[in-house]
């Protein structure tokens, strides 16, 4: 916490009134700072801002890579086509659904895991942490295959294990129906990314002042009262950051869907639509427009988060 306060104090150099001329030493320091931070800054802009501007430009053309000569300026025509196509809205719906469900489940599960790690006996704490980090370290594609093979009608064992559950039998093809396929996709997404959220929440838990919880306990507050009145309100910043980052991440979901269904049976998400349009079908203009729309959606999510939850992104990252 102290670090962030310090950072906030020294951060906004440009807004400080520069009345007295800077000393040579201060000038040298500024120059050195710019030289050291400059390259990273320029590269970050070059690898993101430049491509997105390019996408913005290319989205204004009717442009297929297979017929480059037919390149033709259509203005916002591509956007009109996409926005009037039901497929786009269905994919957007699926993406939003996946985002909302995974984030909610991950928040609950991640919080439970954080509580377990926080109050576990010393002897097992290290083990739990280590185990929790394994899903984080695994490649998403590998986790997608693990879940896919477990549920797959040919190679899977889930059907025979859970045949006692009504609706599950040897013939259940999980990946041939929208809802069952989405279930497995979301389960693997949740498994893979919950560790990240629970580590963030664990750090948030550590920042809750111990005296407060102890005082509440002495005053006879129940476990639930301590949770809802003391601990959770004190972790608000950490929870907001976790939710926002996971939401943005979930909205970009790609790997799991690509591996498990490749978008078949109504499981296509926006990222996959963009990928399919530009890289599979080589419709660069149309694909660029989808990419730009996806980018706009992400900005809208950020904007909502900032307005609704009053998260100052840079400040929130800086603790309470």
């Amino acid at each position, binding site marked *: 916490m102290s670090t962030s306060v310090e950072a906030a104090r020294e951060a906004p*150099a440009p807004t400080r009134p520069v009345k007295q001329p800077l000393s040579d030493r201060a000038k040298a320091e500024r120059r050195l700072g710019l030289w050291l931070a400059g390259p990273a800054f320029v590269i970050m802009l070059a690898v993101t801002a430049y491509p997105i501007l390019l996408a913005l430009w290319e989205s204004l053309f009717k442009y297929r890579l297979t017929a480059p000569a037919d390149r033709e300026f259509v203005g916002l025509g591509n956007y009109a086509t996409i926005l009037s196509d039901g497929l786009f809205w269905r994919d957007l719906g699926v993406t939003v659904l996946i985002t909302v469900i995974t984030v909610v489940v991950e928040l609950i599960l991640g919080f439970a895991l954080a509580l377990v790690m926080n109050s576990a006996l010393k002897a097992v704490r290290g083990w739990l942490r280590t185990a929790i980090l394994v899903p984080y370290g695994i490649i998403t594609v*590998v986790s997608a*295959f693990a879940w896919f093979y477990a549920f797959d009608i040919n190679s899977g064992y889930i059907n025979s294990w859970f045949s006692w559950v009504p609706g599950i039998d040897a013939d259940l093809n999980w990946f041939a129906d929208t809802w069952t396929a989405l279930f497995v996709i979301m389960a693997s997404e949740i498994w893979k990314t919950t560790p990240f959220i629970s580590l*963030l929440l664990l750090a948030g838990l550590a920042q809750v002042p111990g005296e407060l919880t102890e005082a509440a306990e002495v005053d006879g507050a129940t476990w639930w009262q301590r949770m809802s009145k003391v601990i959770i309100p004190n972790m608000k910043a950490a929870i907001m*950051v976790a939710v926002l980052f996971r939401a943005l991440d979930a909205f970009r979901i790609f790997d799991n869907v690509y591996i498990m269904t490749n978008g078949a049976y109504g499981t296509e998400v926006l990222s996959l639509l963009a990928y399919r349009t530009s*890289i599979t079908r080589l419709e*660069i203009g149309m694909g660029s427009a989808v990419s730009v729309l996806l980018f706009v959606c992400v900005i809208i999510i*950020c904007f909502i988060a900032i307005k609704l939850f009053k998260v100052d992104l840079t400040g929130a990252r800086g603790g309470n």
Partner: protein
Amino acid sequence: MKSSPTKRRWIWGIISVLVILYALFPVASIFATSFKLPSDLTSGTFLPNTWSTTNYEQILVGDAQGLFLSALRNSIGICLIATFVAVILATLCAYAIARLDFPGKRLVLTTALGVSIFPVISIVTPLFNLWRNIGLYDTWLGLIIPYLSLTLPISIWTLAAFFRQIPWELEQAAQVDGATTWQAFRKAIVPLAAPGVFTTAIIAFFIAWNDFVYGISLTSTEAARPVPAALAFFTGASQFEEPTGAISAAAIIVTIPVVVLVLAFQRQIVSGLTQGAVKG
């Protein structure tokens, strides 16, 4: 709350086993699959009936060798270079942010944040076309550059958080004691900063290693295709055979080094991740 210590031990034991099962089960699942014989793959059991290393032989010395080993080489090379470049640039940048007074500090951090929330697929479409035009498509450099958009922001955030905690006065103290600027920096600051830089490198490497979208979109052959993309394009020993076993074996091989790294450096990774994300 008043339960006896032994009872508490039991409860915690059970909870811990459940959590560990949750975390490791999918890994165990693909591990078991990787040792199944082709005939065993459809048996519907969790464990193989006979444990066999056929799948590993197929990808390491057999007919899928070319595909897998070249992908492994590409992944290791590309991710190491992308990590190295990102960590060097981020170290300079984070040092400046933590230590020096210059205009635009906040702008650099905000940009890093903006880049890290950028949807990868939005960059891939224009890069796909651009890389084809300038000859970077399906090359190592063609992946290293976009990987910087993944590794740079998190490196800057994590390192800035680390560097802010270093007591920089040590450096001045060393200078007062007669060390030159460079000596003071090397002897007093570098040993304190090194663990943070190392942790950041591991986290950045994980993130690059995990990439899939750039991998499948910006490569087309074994020249640059990294492991995750290669897994998705694997075909079986014959056209009509599902490559389930080979993919599982390959998945285990690329998972082991990562899991070993996680086990070895778990403490640093946890502190690095949470400091970068929560404290900043």
